[in-house]
């Protein structure tokens, strides 16, 4: 967990399932932790950032609803996979009531690595999409002010910290291309387009001066063309 590896917490009384999950994560991509009581599971969830919780519905039968509610309150993003022996109307109603959408019936379908990875990635995706608006606003307020030497001349550009951009050497625009992607690129494009127009103008001016080019001469020297229809 300290090495930023995904961790799976298991609250199951089925040794076969424990072995199966252990085997599926045997390439050490995930850490698997087994607990035997709901309280221990809650304690672990408070202490560590787990990527997946696998709960045995039959083990936590009496306190299943409370356990799920507590887990959702403590870590609302934590995906929960419920394993169940036989699904009945009652158990299904309880799962729906607890807002649990991921479950497997042990006798009907095996737990696959793809299923585990899908659930783990769910949390990662949720985390990646989360930007706290307050934090963003604060970052925008406290963000580093950058004075631009080209493009946005004389303007202070505030770079929010959320972009994690290293702003050292920003004023030296030509050496900071990698550091300040967006703003710098924009300013460079403006600079380049200005230069191109100037260069183009100068080129044609030079061309006309050199050859003493005039439209009258050009017209006089052109052969007469008669059109007969």
């Amino acid at each position, binding site marked *: 967990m300290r090495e930023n590896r995904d961790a799976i917490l298991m609250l199951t009384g089925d040794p076969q399932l424990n072995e199966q999950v252990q085997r599926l994560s045997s390439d050490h991509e995930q850490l698997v932790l087994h607990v035997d009581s*709901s*309280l221990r599971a809650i*304690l672990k969830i408070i202490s560590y950032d787990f990527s997946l919780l696998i709960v045995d519905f039959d083990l936590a039968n*009496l306190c299943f609803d*409370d356990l799920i509610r507590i887990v959702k309150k*403590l870590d609302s993003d934590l995906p929960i996979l419920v394993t169940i022996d036989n699904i009945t109307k009652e158990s299904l109603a309880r799962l729906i009531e607890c807002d649990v959408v991921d479950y497997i019936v042990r006798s009907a379908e095996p737990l696959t690595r793809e299923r585990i990875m899908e659930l783990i990635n769910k949390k990662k995706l949720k985390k990646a999409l989360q930007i706290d608006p307050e934090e963003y606003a604060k970052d925008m307020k406290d963000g580093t002010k950058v004075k631009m030497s080209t493009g946005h001349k004389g303007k202070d550009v505030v770079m929010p910290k959320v972009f994690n951009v290293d702003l050292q050497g920003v004023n030296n625009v030509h050496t900071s291309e990698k550091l300040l992607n967006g703003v710098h690129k924009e300013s460079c494009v403006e600079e380049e387009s200005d230069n191109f127009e100037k260069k183009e103008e100068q080129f044609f001016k030079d061309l006309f001066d050199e050859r003493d080019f005039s439209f009258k001469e050009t017209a006089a020297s052109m052969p007469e063309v008669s059109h007969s229809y």
Partner: protein
Amino acid sequence: MARGAECVVIVTEDESLKNRVKAILEYYKIEVIIENSSLKSILKILTDEIFFLLLDFDYPENSIIDLITILKLTRPRLPIVVILERISRDRFKKLIDAGIFHYLLKPAQTEEIGRIIEAIRRFHEKDANILNTKIV
């Protein structure tokens, strides 16, 4: 819980203790909620504002220390009072390490509970004062 009202959660299955403590607390005009499971008590503490929690140490679930640890991790400023049959040095050390506020021996005495309530009121007042203090 109504604003201003003080609410105590009792976690026990002992009927006589339940009735006795409930009567004492009601004498001190404190609202009482009785929970039969530790998970329910955690849920209650996570959702509502609780004055203090009274835990029966001789509760059938033998993981009271785990429960206290969870409660202290989720609500560090929640006073937890443990009530138990007898106390030993080891038990006392365990309870103190887990972070309890006070302990009571069965059967609980009215005056003793009264003193604990006063202490907890002062504790909450201190907390409120700290929160209201303006840092200049």
